[in-house]
């Protein structure tokens, strides 16, 4: 059975008929073809699927598309400026080599942006603690922590 889901994605309206069991991440990746949001696990732990829903970071693999009905979604594709200027968090990840294979990166960046909303100037321990919902297998976290610190200083 299909239902219609309508929401705003990266500032633009999006609507489609989907099966009711469709996860939000499948809707984003497969229906909207926004493949920057990734799936790295099936127990909502790796955080690669992190997006913003009405301004809050959530794991889109653990939410039904229908739960996002009428909501405003931002994905990794939607955070740079229209002219292509990277979001300060994206820029900080690049400057600080906060990514290697790039697979966890979209979730990391979306989570980190959300982190700074709540902790504008976090110390290292806070950053590490607040990254507990995101797994990275490449960077050893060292440069991700550095990137988030740099981004927080950039916005000071």
């Amino acid at each position, binding site marked *: *059975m299909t*239902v219609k889901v309508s929401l705003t994605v990266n500032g633009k309206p999006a609507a489609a008929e989907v*099966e*009711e*069991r469709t*996860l939000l991440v499948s809707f984003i990746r497969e229906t909207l073809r926004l493949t920057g949001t990734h799936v790295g696990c*099936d*127990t*909502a*732990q790796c*955080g690669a699927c*992190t997006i913003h*829903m009405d301004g*809050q*970071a*959530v*794991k889109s*693999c*653990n*939410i*039904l598309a*229908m*739960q996002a009905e009428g909501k405003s979604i931002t994905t990794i594709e939607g955070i740079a400026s229209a002219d292509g200027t990277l979001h300060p968090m994206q820029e900080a990840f690049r400057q600080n080599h906060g990514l290697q294979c790039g697979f966890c990166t979209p979730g990391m960046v979306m*989570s980190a942006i*959300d*982190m700074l909303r*709540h902790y504008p100037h976090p110390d290292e321990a806070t950053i590490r603690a*607040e990254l*507990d*919902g*995101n797994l990275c297998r490449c960077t050893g976290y060292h440069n991700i922590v550095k990137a988030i610190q740099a981004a927080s200083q950039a916005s000071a």
Partner: protein
Amino acid sequence: MYPFEYQTASSVADAASRLAAHGDAKLLAGGQTMIASMKLRLAQPSHLIDLAGAADMRGIQVSATEVTLGAMSRHAEVARSAAVQKAIPVLAKLAGGIGDRMVRNMGTIGGSVANNDPAADYPAAVLGLNATVRTNKRSIAADDFFLGMYETALAEGEIITSFSFPIPRRGAYMKFKNPASRYALVGVLVAQLADGSVRVAVTGAGPVVFRVPEMEKALTAQFAPEAVAGIKIPADGLNADIHAQADYRAHLITVMAKRAVAAALA
């Protein structure tokens, strides 16, 4: 995930009637456990009734004597509520330590307590702070609510609407996390209630959240870390898995209780 029909409820009453209309219907609160188990095909509801639109299940109220949390209060809302932080700091802090930031933005107290995972944090708060669980049918004392592993006093069709937490004198929650899942390997909530009585609630260690009368007695006599430091918890009946054998969990209960008392006094 198996196919199901998705519905939204506009109120508690609406949710109740939808639940009654379909035998295999389930409620969807924050979905952080429900969706995960459906993805693994461990649950197969015919209908999923989303409570996000039920306005009468939301909201945080703080009076002189108690904090009331709507069942659909998200963990992040509770953690960030200045009123809760002031009235019952341990409650805000516990909510702020559930899962991770993304999970806290979706997960709700009603969903967590109704699910009654043996390693969840909220059951320790409900039991340790002597909260009352309010449903669409009745009020249930915390002591009567948690019956066993994933088992509660909720009857068929009964829906948690809110929780009332009496404001204690002091309290603290200490969690030793499972290194892998980050759920509570052992979590101990210690609270000195308004009447001076003390509750010690333990999650993660057994099949269901439980109180430790011996510690409560000792702490009622003297609310100090030393009062519990020497109390050994028997390992019988405690959980054992690759992360912690029962004797280790038993030991951690004492350590976490001691630290919780110290934190409550700090």
